[in-house]
Each structure stands twice: as structure tokens, then as C-alpha cells.
């Protein structure tokens, strides 16, 4: 059995176990959840460290000559695969495996999930339900990043929908939490349904849900006229996937659910959702939509590039006006999605590599930022920045991490975000010079304005009159935050660690970029 199955199965199995434990045994739930996510994390680190990139030259013999099984997996650089028949009538398999993009996403998701379960100690009521829902969400999204069957991918991602709704409603904060819960659910389900329609159309086109078989067929289609996947169909499918997945990610102008939802969500949910689950849409766009419908991509990507400016500029400007720390982080996180969209829209190997790097970096950063703001809320019972001033003196550890998180958010070199965003700009420069220029400027100026202003009001200066008494993080409470910032710095100073793995997903990238290159010739 593939270790990936355990990475996904541990949280899900623990959720089942917790379901039969009586609700009074409260520590059991907390420690059970931490144990399961820690297990997933350790396994993910193991898989990440032994994930041995195939030699790039072998990929020169592309497209793969094999049509089935391990030869195809090797050709596309997938490891740790496992394939079991699930629903033969519909040709659906339980099929997992990771390539370079998959493994970095799994590692990031496992890191944030572990941190999120550790940061959930603010939950004091109905812990049983909370941890079961959190584990369901975690197992589902970990599985979604390693699925090689598109049905399975969609199926596992949707596991998070209902837990999100219940978690925001029951343990959420603020008077708008009901509205936020409905809004996030309705937006996400709309996005998911459009995606489902796109997935079904892809399935009908290729007669299979297996990602590898579909990619293989797509390369064979590309040369021939007979049985070709017509441009008109590709346009429809790509539009469905782009807007469906775009809604899941918070593509402007469908982003309004995100800051509101994260503001109302309990800490662990916000960390998981903003950090990990939101990345699924981007992941599926890169892994499924780009390589399988390259001609559709040519039609729609310029529009995506324009819309991503909406994310970068509009959401950045909205973030400038926020007085609530969570809304600020939420809006800035939507703004950061704009860089990933820009990287995807460029469809160059460099741009896509940068997009994946930003996804990883932003996942860690969003987890960290929402974790920190959640801790502040549990101490101060408010996140209104007018009431919270000069916190650095009272809580040095927390304050230092917050400064680092906010700085990373405006792209300070040394953090993984900088490396990723820079790579995206390198990739996008050739394709969309104007948009990239605007993006860089606004990223620098707008990002710096709101992040620095937040640092000034929140952390520096004298303690405000209305500021409540707050305590710093103590002892082991620091662990999850320290872990996230350490990895963020590690990938920032030594990005080769992940770029090497991502670079091995050449086959996916190449399939996506080749059609684009052909067009421009």
C-alpha cells in the first residue's frame, strides 16, 4: 500500500474512532487529532525526502509511448502510486500518486493541518464534533492533492464543504457568522458544481477519469485531426473549470466570500481553508485544466490575466481600508491569489513553477497569519485594530512572528513568498508585460502600505488605552507557529528544495506550455 494512503487515511480513520468515543473525554479528542495530523505530517516529510526526481533527460521521449500502468506513471514522473478498482461501471478508481507538484502540496497541507489542530485549543465547547469535522476536512484535502483520478479528487475536496459550514456556524465569531457561513457555502458549492460539469465533460471526452490516461490521450489528440478534441468544446470546458475553480479560489469578482468567511471562522478552520483548501482550485487548474484543454486555455487565459489584476489591485486596495485584522489578512490573502493566477495565465514553465511556489508559501503564510490573529482574538476577544495598539511590548514572541508574517506578506526577500512571486514575475514578463508591471508596482506599494500600517498600529508604539491585557504564547504553544515560520524561511533561503521537486513535473508543464508555444509561433 502506498504511504500516501496512510497520509490521507490517518485523519479519516481518527475521525471515525473519535465518533465512537463519548463526548465527556475531552482531552482525548484534542490529542487524538494532533496525533493523527502529526502522523500524516511525519509520513509526508518522509515521502517528500525520499521522493526521488526522475532524470530530466528521460522526459525527452515525450509523449509517452505507453498507455497503461507504471510506464505511464514513470513518463509523467509519478511516484508512490496505488490503484484499486472502485466503481467499475463508471470507470472510477481509487488512484493516488504524487509528482513534484503533488508532493510539495501534500507536505504543505500536512504542515498546516498539524499546526491548525495545535492552534485549536481555543475550542472549549463541543470538542468532539469540532475535531471530527476538522479531521474530515484534513483527510479530504490531503487526499485531493494526491488523487490521480479526477472523480476521486473532486469527491475528496467536497468533503470540506459541510464541515466548513458547521464550524463557522457553531464555533465562529462575530454577529455576521450566519451570513458568512451561508455565503461561503453557496459560493463554494456554485464553484464546485461548475467544476463538476467541466469534469463530466472531460470524462465524456476521454472516456476515463484517470488523469494520466487523459493526459496521454490529449497528447495523441494534439497531432491528429481524427477524434480531436475540438477547440469549441475545449473553450466550454476550460471556461467551466476556470470560473468554477476560480470561485473556489476567490478569483475577482467572485472573491467576496473569502475575507468574510475567514473573518468569521474559528482559527483552525481559517488556517485550513485559507492555507490549504483554497489552493485546491489552483492545483486542479494546473494539473487538469491546463494540460487537458490547452486550446481552451489559449482563449481564456488572457481574460484570467485581466481578472487577476482585479485580485491584486482591487483586493489590495480593499485590504488597505480594513480595521479588522482578520479582514485585512483575508483580503491580502485573496490579493496574493492574483499572483498565482498570473503565473498560471502565463503558461510558461517558469511562471507555473512560481505559481506552485506561491501556493506553498502562501499556504504556510496564511496558516501562520490566521493562527496568530486567532490567538490574539482568544486573548483580547477583538481584532479591531483601533482598540489594539502597541502589542509588541506585551507579547514579544507573538509580536515578532506577526511582524515576520506581515513582512512576508508584502514580499520581503528571505521568505518563500518572495522567491515565488519573483519567479511568477519572471515567467509572466514575456507574456503579459503590462499586467506584470502593474502587478509588481501594486504588489510593492499597496502591499507595503497596508502591511506596514498594520505593523505600526498593532505592534509598535505605546500600549493603547482601550487595549486589553494580553498574554504572550507560552512554551509548547509556540510550536505550531515556530514550525510554520521555520519552513517559510527554509524555503525562502533555499528554494531549490521545492523548485527541484516542482521542476520534475515537467511533463505536466510541458503539455500545458507546448500548445501555447505552438500558437505563438
Amino acid at each position: 500500500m502506498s504511504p500516501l494512503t496512510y497520509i490521507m487515511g490517518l485523519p479519516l480513520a481518527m475521525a471515525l474512532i473519535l465518533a465512537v468515543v463519548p463526548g465527556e473525554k475531552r482531552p482525548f479528542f484534542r490529542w487524538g487529532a494532533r496525533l493523527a495530523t502529526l502522523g500524516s505530517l511525519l509520513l509526508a516529510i518522509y515521502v517528500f525526502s525520499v521522493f526521488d526526481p526522475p532524470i530530466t533527460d528521460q522526459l525527452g521521449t515525450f509523449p509517452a509511448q505507453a498507455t497503461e500502468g507504471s510506464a505511464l506513471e514513470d513518463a509523467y514522473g509519478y511516484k508512490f502510486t496505488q490503484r484499486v478498482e472502485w466503481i467499475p461501471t463508471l470507470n472510477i478508481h481509487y488512484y493516488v500518486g504524487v509528482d513534484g507538484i503533488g508532493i510539495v502540496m501534500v507536505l504543505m497541507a500536512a504542515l498546516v493541518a498539524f499546526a491548525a489542530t495545535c492552534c485549536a485549543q481555543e475550542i472549549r465547547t463541543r470538542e468532539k464534533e469540532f475535531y471530527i469535522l476538522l479531521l474530515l476536512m484534513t483527510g479530504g484535502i490531503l487526499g485531493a492533492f494526491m488523487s490521480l483520478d479526477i472523480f476521486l479528487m473532486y469527491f475528496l475536496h467536497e468533503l470540506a464543504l459541510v464541515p466548513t459550514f458547521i464550524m463557522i456556524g457553531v464555533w465562529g465569531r462575530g454577529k455576521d457568522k450566519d451570513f458568512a457561513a451561508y455565503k461561503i457555502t453557496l459560493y463554494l458549492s456554485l464553484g464546485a458544481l461548475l467544476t463538476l460539469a467541466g469534469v463530466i465533460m472531460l470524462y465524456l471526452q476521454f472516456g476515463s477519469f484517470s488523469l494520466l490516461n487523459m493526459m496521454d490521450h490529449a497528447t495523441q489528440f494534439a497531432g491528429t485531426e481524427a477524434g480531436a478534441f475540438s477547440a469549441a468544446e475545449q473553450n466550454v470546458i476550460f471556461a467551466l473549470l476556470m470560473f468554477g475553480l476560480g470561485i473556489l479560489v476567490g478569483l475577482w469578482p467572485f472573491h467576496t466570500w473569502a475575507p468574510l468567511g475567514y473573518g468569521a471562522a474559528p482559527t483552525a478552520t481559517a488556517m485550513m481553508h485559507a492555507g490549504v483548501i483554497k489552493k485546491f482550485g489552483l492545483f486542479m487548474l494546473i494539473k487538469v485544466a491546463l494540460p487537458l484543454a490547452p486550446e481552451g486555455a489559449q482563449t481564456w487565459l488572457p481574460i484570467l490575466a485581466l481578472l487577476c489584476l482585479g485580485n491584486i489591485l482591487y483586493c489590495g486596495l480593499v485590504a488597505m481600508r480594513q480595521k479588522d485584522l482578520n479582514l485585512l489578512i483575508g483580503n491580502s490573502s485573496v490579493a496574493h491569489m492574483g499572483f498565482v493566477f498570473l503565473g498560471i495565465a502565463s503558461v510558461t514553465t517558469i511562471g507555473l513553477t512560481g505559481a506552485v511556489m506561491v501556493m506553498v508559501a502562501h499556504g504556510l503564510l496564511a496558516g501562520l497569519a490566521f493562527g496568530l490573529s486567532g490567538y490574539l482574538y482568544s486573548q483580547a476577544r477583538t481584532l479591531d485594530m483601533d482598540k489594539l495598539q502597541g502589542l509588541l511590548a506585551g507579547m514579544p514572541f507573538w509580536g515578532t512572528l506577526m511582524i515576520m508574517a506581515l513582512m512576508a506578506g508584502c514580499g520581503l526577500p528571505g521568505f518563500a513568498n518572495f522567491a515565488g512571486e519573483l519567479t511568477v514575475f519572471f515567467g509572466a514578463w514575456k507574456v503579459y508585460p503590462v499586467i506584470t508591471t502593474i502587478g509588481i508596482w501594486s504588489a510593492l506599494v499597496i502591499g507595503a502600505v497596508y502591511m506596514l500600517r498594520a505593523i505600526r498600529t498593532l505592534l509598535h508604539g505605546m500600549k493603547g488605552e482601550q487595549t486589553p491585557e494580553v498574554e504572550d504564547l507560552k512554551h509548547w504553544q509556540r510550536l505550531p507557529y515556530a514550525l510554520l515560520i521555520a519552513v517559510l524561511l527554509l524555503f525562502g533561503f533555499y528554494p531549490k528544495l521545492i523548485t527541484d521537486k516542482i521542476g520534475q513535473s515537467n511533463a505536466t508543464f510541458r503539455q500545458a506550455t507546448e500548445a501555447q508555444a505552438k500558437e505563438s509561433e
Partner: protein
Amino acid sequence: MDLSLVSLEIGITLIGVAVLLVDLWTPTERKAQLGWWVVGGLVAVFCYSFSTFNQGPGTGALGYTKDSLAVFFQGYFVLSAILVVLLTQSYANRIRSGISELYALICFALAGMSFAAGANSLAMLFVAVELITITFYVLTSFERNRFRSLEAGVKYLILGAASSAIMVFGIALIYGSTGALDFHEIARATMALNDDSIMLLYQLGVLMTLAGLFFKLAAVPFQVWVPDVYQGAPTPVTTFLSIGSKAAGIVLMIRLLAEACPPLQHEVWLRQLLALMAAATILYGSLCALRQRNLKRLLGYSSIASAGFVLLGLVTLNDLGAQAVLFYLAAYVFGVVGAFTVIAVVSEESADEDISILANLHQRSPLMATVLTLSIISLAGIPPLAGFIGKFILLRAAISSLEVHPIMPWVIGPALIGVVISFYYYFSVIREIFWGKGRFWKEEAPATEPLDCPRSAEVILLTCLFGLIGLGLFPEPILYIAGEATNFLFFAN
């Protein structure tokens, strides 16, 4: 004449008669317990009905056929009836008199549904429909002491009688134009029709017969009876209406469209009509459910919306669509029965059906809260439950016929919109369960003490739990059976 062909129906009817007889010698306080015996009998019949699966079609001269489609639906109906009898038993406190008659009537309705599953001629179709409908006239008004129940009975009677009249007129037109009642003979006769005006009569007849079935299905514009009848009828009867009577309409529609109207399958207007109705039904049901606070009315509107989804599968007029409809129904049973059972138990305790009675249910009864939540999630079509697979294969069937039917985008679009709208009211139920505040017009906090669940209701809830998760994670067996049952059904396509 081969009586063994209809042994299932004979068995069911005998159970019904036996209950009525045994009732005479049973003391009043133990009459509700007869339900266990009925369930036992039905389980035996159910096992029997599956033992005959795939033994090849046996066709009698009576306009009744026992092919795999019939066996699938008979199994479906018996399963629904078993769950409904169990539900009736946990509902027994609210039936003042004649609980055994209720059991017997359910059996008689079941016999009618079973005949409907195998109906192969217009005469059998009409008899089966009437057997079901007339039983339901009595069933809906069974709580004679409740004004609402009587109101529901009268409304169902008037509209049901009108729709039967339309249907019988349609049957007369078909008979008049083709000279046949048997589906296959009708099909043969229409092939030879070359007179346009007679063809028109035939088409009109088919439309009017379909109208009678649309009434069972509650498709727009034949849906007006649903909310009042669903709200007024005793909850077990509402459940049976929603899963049994509706499915009987569906199987008859599949048979009529597939076997009796091959020439119409290529008519564009039929497809356009079905498509328009599907879109209207989905949107009507979803939009009207939005503001409902009465749980039974809410599920009534949601059942209209799901009738629209069934129509979405039927618009395709091919085997894939029929297979999807069959699986969708199988998944639908567990969702609907689970939801209605919890509503029956909770509303008995608080003598109300407002959505606010669900407040604190997660604390009062974790089992009921879990099953209701899962049922609702399944009805909404969210993984990993049965309803998702159902919705998925319906959409697959619809999208796969995009190329053949240019009308399809105009149904799939509204269907997707309808699903998103439906999330709002489905999730409102979940909200009430987990963080509802109780009645907003009352100051008092909602009850928190544990809520007991009768034994028979527990059996249903566990069955539904098992069914919802089982069909969601391992849909293969039922998908395979549904595929077998609908293989070569629409051979013309």
C-alpha cells in the same frame, strides 16, 4: 394463465388481508405491534423478489411483464414499504384508531405499485395507478381528528380524480387511434399509422396519459397539491407518497416512453416539453422551498425539485438516463425516509412542525442529529453520500446527450442553479440542528433534555445511515443492477 408470475403481488395482498383479520383478535394496546409482523412478511417477500431477479422476462397475456426493470422497482417498492411500516409503528401514538387498517392500506398501495412496475398495457397502467391513488385518498386523511389531515385528503381527492379523468381520456384516445392497449402492440400500430389526423389523436392521447403520471410525479404544472398534502397527511403517509407513489409514476413513464412511443422518441417537441418541465420543476421546487419554515412543506418542495431531476434524466430518452434515474431513486429513499423519521419523532414531542423544533437536536439525540444531517446532505447531493452519486450520474447522462439534443444546456443550466439554491434551505436545516436558537418569537430557550427515539424508528435510522453511506462509498452493486434493468430499454436510440 400463470399465477406464479404475480406471486409477489398476491403475497403482498395476502399480508394486507391477514393484518385486517388478525386485528379482530388482537387487544387494542398491542395492535401497533402488528407492524413487526407486517415487516417480517414484507422482508420475506423482498428476499423472494430478489431471488427472481434476472431469471429472464416472463410475460403474461395480462399486460404484465416481469423483466429486470420490474424486479428492480418491486424491490425498491417493498423496501420503501418496509421502512414506511416501521415509521408508522413509531407514529402509532398519534393514530387514534385503526392502526391495522393503516398497515393493510400500505400493503394494498404496495400491491398497486408492484403492478405498476410490471405494467405492460394501458389497462394495467390505469388499474395500478387507481389502486395506488384511491388507497392514498384514504391514507392522507387518516388522522380523522386533525383538520389538516382531512383537508389534505380532500385536496388530494379532487386533484387526483381530475388527473385520473385526464389520464383515462388519454388512454381512450390512444386506444381509439391505434386499436391496442398493449404497449408493444401500440408501438407496432403507430409504425403503420399514415394518417396525420389520427397520429395527432395518438400524440394527444400520449400527452394526456403522461399528464396523469406527471401528477403522481408532482412535476410543474401538476405540483399544486404537494405542499398542502405533504403537510397535512400523517408523516408515514407523506413519506410513502414521496418515495412510493412518485416512483410508481416514474416507472410507468419510463415504460410508456420506452415501449409505447418509439415514433415519439424522435419528435423534437416531446423532448422540448420534457426539458421545459424539468427546468421549471427544479426551479419552482427550489425557489418555493426557500422561505418555508414548516419542515414537511419544505421537504414537499424539495421533493418537487427532485422530481425535476428525475425528469432531467428522462429528457435524455436513453438507457443511460434511465439508469441514472433508477440509482437516483434508490439513493433518494434513504435520504427522504431518514429525514421524515426524525421529523416524525421530534414533532411528536413538541407538537409542532416548525423548523425551530430541531434546535439543540445535536445534544438531545446525537443519532437523530447525525442521520438527519446526513439525509439532508445526501438530498443536497454532497459527497460522500448516496445523493451525490445520484446527482453525478444524472448530470453525466444529461451532459452526455448534449450533442444529440441541442436543448440540453437549457435544462442543465437551471438544474445547476437549482442545486445551488437548494443548498440554502437544506443548510438551514443543518443550521437549526447544530446552532439553532429555537423559536424567535418566544423568549424561552429551546429544550435540551435528551429525546428518546422509539425502537422501530431507531431501526429505520440505522438502515438509512447504512444506506446513505454505503451507497455513497460503494455504489457499484446498485449501479450495476440499475444498468442491467435499463439495458436496451430505449432500443430505438
